[in-house]
Every structure is written in structure tokens, then in C-alpha cells.
């Protein structure tokens, strides 16, 4: 199983622990990858506000690069997944538009013909690897560990760009993974809501109310940690949790926010340093201890 790897800006910038843990986990899973080091940022919906076509050119360029390698794209960012899927849907629906977009790529000798796909690691786990094979890479079972899922908007909406008709299992993929590691799913209404990150730098008060609501509710429901496949959600839910909960009277900032690959790494027995669990602003000590106390086997 080989992929053109698109980690996204955050995994290569403000959230390096995501990149490191993903690489370690992919190694255990036998996933081969080649990083698309020449690819551009997806625009995260922000570039698209100003100029959707420009955003589409950058994303179709990334897909064309993968197509040239004959590989599907693998991402570890919910936002990148969504933005690339949306661009892909627009050109697949409109041949003239695809031709127009391709005209911007011709200079580089690139052209996209729709012969590749974009998949988040989360989807690869449930669709390509499968729960049974996945579980063979685990050394322990997280029984008694309560985990709240937090998807990130762009991996759940708009649903018609994300292949849910063909792959209904994607809609519950995060719960599937939590159950596969032996954890208990803490279900709460905020799991598919917005984390507030896109307006953090625009309306911080509202952004932090969202952080406080989601993390506060999950804590009150007994979650030991929250798991997310989105590094942007992570930046807000982890980095701003102390301030958010203090400002909104939602208790202590005690909910560790774990990147999806970090969760897998913990059950695979990968050391916490490689997984970068010490690099979070909300301390992960308690959840790591809880996992450590579970015997291997």
C-alpha cells in the first residue's frame, strides 16, 4: 500500500508531533509513502473566500502530481481532506472547468484527469486496512479508557463531496477506530461541530466559547481524552483550552487532545517521545499513565 503523502501545513509547522507520530504509525502499518514536498497549501477555505479558482488550481495541481506518480493522496488533516475533495468534486462535475484549471498546470507538464483519490489516514484505516488487520498491529487494548471523538468540519461536510454515498462507513470512522483500540466512545453532540479555529484570529471570544463547550462537555461526560484527525482543531482545542475554560467557567483544562496517529501509536506500543505526547499544552500525563498501566498482550 503506497501513497503520495500530503501532511498539510500544520503537521509541518505548528504541530510537528502529528507528522512524527503519523510517520511512526504508517511504518508499523506497512504503509509506504512519498511526500509531495512541492505541493502547495490547500488554502483551507480561506484562499477560496477570495478566489475559489485559484484555490482549485493549487489543489488540482497536488492531485495531478499524485496522478503522475500513479498514487492516491494520503492526508492527515481533516481540513486538507475536505478542501481537496471539494476541488476534486468541482472539476469532476464540469469538464470545461477541468480544462481551464489544467491550462494553468500545463507549463509544469502537469495535467489532471481524475485518476486518483484523496484519503485521510482515518478512512484508510477503516476502508483499506480494515479493523481486523489494524488490530494485529496493536500490543494492548484500551479497555476502560473513555475517548471523545472530534472530527473537524471538513471531513464531515459538505457530505456530497466526501463520498459518503459510496462509503457510508466514513461517517462513523472515528468511532470505529476508538472501538477498535478497545476504548469506550464518549458520544456528544459537538463531535461534528466547529472547534472555532477558523475565527480564532477574528472573533476570539466566540472561538473560545466553542472550545469551552466541546472540551467542557466531553470532560463532564467522563472522557479521559479527545481524539481528532484534524490538526487545526487540535491547535484550538489543545492550545486555547486553558484560556477558554477559564473564561467560560467550564472547569479545569483537563482534557488531553490526542491526534489520531498518537492514539494508534499508544496501542502499538510506540514510545511517547516519538509520538510527541509531551508537546501538548494540555498535559497528557494522566492518559499516558492510564495507557501505561494496561499490560501488554
Amino acid at each position, binding site marked *: 500500500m503506497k501513497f503520495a503523502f500530503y501532511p498539510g*501545513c*500544520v503537521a*509541518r*509547522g*505548528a*504541530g*510537528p*508531533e502529528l507528522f512524527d507520530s503519523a510517520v511512526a504509525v504508517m511504518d508499523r502499518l506497512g504503509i509506504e509513502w512519498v511526500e509531495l*514536498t*512541492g*505541493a*502547495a*497549501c490547500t*488554502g*483551507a*477555505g*480561506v*484562499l*477560496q*473566500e*477570495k*478566489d475559489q*479558482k*485559484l484555490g482549485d*488550481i*493549487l489543489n488540482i*495541481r497536488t492531485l495531478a502530481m499524485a496522478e503522475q506518480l500513479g498514487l492516491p493522496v494520503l492526508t492527515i488533516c481533516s481540513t486538507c481532506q475536505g478542501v481537496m475533495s471539494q476541488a476534486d468534486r468541482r472539476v469532476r462535475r464540469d469538464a470545461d472547468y477541468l480544462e481551464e484549471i489544467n491550462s*494553468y498546470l500545463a*507549463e*509544469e507538464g502537469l495535467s489532471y484527469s481524475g485518476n486518483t483519490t484523496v484519503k485521510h489516514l482515518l478512512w484508510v484505516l477503516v476502508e483499506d486496512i480494515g479493523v481486523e488487520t489494524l488490530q494485529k498491529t496493536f500490543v494492548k487494548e484500551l479497555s476502560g479508557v473513555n475517548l471523545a471523538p472530534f472530527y473537524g*468540519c*471538513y471531513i464531515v*461536510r*459538505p*457530505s456530497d463531496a466526501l463520498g459518503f454515498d459510496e462509503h457510508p462507513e466514513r461517517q462513523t470512522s472515528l468511532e470505529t477506530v476508538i472501538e477498535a483500540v478497545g476504548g469506550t466512545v464518549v458520544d456528544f*453532540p459537538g463531535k461534528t*461541530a*466547529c472547534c*472555532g479555529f*477558523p*475565527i480564532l*484570529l*477574528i*472573533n*476570539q*471570544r*466566540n472561538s473560545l*466559547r*466553542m472550545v469551552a*463547550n466541546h472540551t467542557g462537555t466531553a470532560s463532564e461526560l467522563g472522557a479521559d481524552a479527545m481524539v481528532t484527525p484534524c490538526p487545526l482543531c487540535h491547535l484550538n482545542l489543545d*492550545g*486555547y483550552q486553558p484560556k477558554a475554560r477559564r473564561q467560560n467557567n467550564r472547569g479545569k483544562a483537563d482534557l488531553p487532545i490526542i491526534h489520531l496517529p498518537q492514539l494508534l501509536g499508544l496501542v502499538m506500543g510506540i514510545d511517547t517521545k516519538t509520538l*510527541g505526547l*509531551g*508537546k*501538548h*499544552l494540555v498535559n497528557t500525563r494522566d492518559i499516558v499513565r492510564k495507557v501505561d498501566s494496561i499490560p501488554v498482550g
Partner: protein
Amino acid sequence: MQAKLKVSRFDPETMGQGQRRWDEFELDVHPSATVLDALIQIREEVDGTLSLRCACRASICGSCGMRVNGDAKLVCKTRIVDTFKDGETIVVEPMGNQAIIKDLVVSLDPFFDKVRQVDPYLQPDAEPDQGEFVASNDSMVNLLTAMNCIMCGACVSDCTVLEVDEAFIGPAALAKAWRFVEDPRDDQRDERLKELNDVEGGIWDCTRCFKCVEVCPKDVAPMDRIMEMRDMAIEAGNTNTPGYRHTESFNKSVKKHGRLDEARLAVESAGYTNVPRLIDLAEIGIRSTLKGKMPPIVPHKADDKEKITRIFERVESERK
């Protein structure tokens, strides 16, 4: 066909605001029944006290907005057989972000107050020459998306910003505002955009979460309309917001490096003179550094950054 429904009940005469009770019903319904048909059947055959709002039963009037298994929908458009194939329980609640009057009926007063807030009527500067304003078909086709709105409130129900901020004008009223900003017969375009840019709860407060796009039964896509107005407001000279600075900084960074310069984006969005916000950012930066995670002061760059810059330059030159 058997259907199981779990219905949220609220009686203002015996319960306090915020309280609710769940009633469960098992019914034999017609194979083509909608969730609305089942609710009416409950009211007629099982419990005459169940309150709900409906009129046309054909997804035209927009009266029967409710939450079905967590998402806002028109219940007259939601067929039981399509949505609940395996006979699972259908959970019906009143819409969110709006005060409940009784059972499944919410107050629409705040909804219409917000629609009124955007002056939802044409404001031409002069009387028409021939007794009426003539607009070509071509100039109006573009407006069809927002004109399809039936004001059901589904987008307002599930808006993630309204959940935390009542002052947000919200997706329905902002889509309505767009409809007048774009109308060729209106002469208040720039004034409208300035107001939507400056006002508390205006166009920059949307999180781009796609909830309204997902739940709208008429494909109005309010979020897309809001994004278009952000660009229009900038084009009209409204450059005094963190939202504008955020978009500009993002654009500049990807153009130059091919990637996002996160540290600079944060500082530039705040504005170089916004001292409290800069102190706040510095605090997060220091705490991250102490955890062994330095903020990326030197941005990560794409190997093909020159090629990416050329794409930006070509698109920009064509835009002019």
C-alpha cells in the same frame, strides 16, 4: 411498515424553560410515509396534545423545520423508508438556537428580527422612469440560489456560531442580505456591505463550518453567500477588520512560500498595533516553546514555491 419515534415534549404550563420530556411511539405507517405523516398520525390517533407546525406538506412553505436525529430538516421532505431503513428509532426534536414554545414548535421572532436587520427590501435612489424597474433575466438568474430560501430556519437551527453568540446575524438573514447586495435594482450595495462588514455579528463571524450548506433543504448555501460578501466587502474598500488582514496574510504567505506561515498569519491578523492580542499570542508562543514546540518563526516552504508564485501572478493578472 413499523416506525419507532422518540419525540421531545415541552409543556410551558407545567415545565420550566430548558426542561423536556421524551415520549416514545410505535406506529404502523404507510410505506411512503414521511416523518411529518408519522407525527400527524400520533397527534390524530395517539396523543392529541402533541404540538407541531406544518402547512403545505410539500416542502414549499417552510413551516415544519425540526431536528431529526440531530440534524435540522423539513420533516415533510424526510421519508421514513429512505432515512431509517433498518427500523431504528427516529428522534424528533424542535429546531435548535430558537426558544421552544411548545413540544416541536419554536419561536420564530428572533429569526424574523434578524431578517429585518438586513433591510430586506429594495432601496433604489430614484423613481423608475416607466413606473417599474426593469431587470434583465440574465441579471436576475444569479439571485435564484438565495431567492429559493423558504425561511424554514433549518440553517439557523444548526448554525455553530449562533450556538455561542446570539448577536450573529446568522445564515438565513445573511443569505437574504446577499440577495439585495446582488440585486441590480438596488442602489445601497456599498452601504449594505459596509454595514455587514462593521456590525457586531456580521459577515466575518461565520466559521465556514458548512452546517448551513448541509442542512438547507433548498440549496441556498448561505455560507457560500457569506464568503462572496466578504470578498465584495473587501473590493468595496472595507479593509479595517481582522478578517481582511487574515485573508490577505494567508494569501501573501501561500503566494510567497507555497505554504502557510502560521506565526506571521497570527500576528498580521491581530494587526501590528494590537498590543493585547500580540501579548496573548506571545504567551501561547512561549508556552509552546517550553513544551519543546517552537512556533514556526521560519516558515515551512514548498519545494515548488517559485512555480506556485507564478500561478498566483498569472491568476492575479487575469483578475485585473
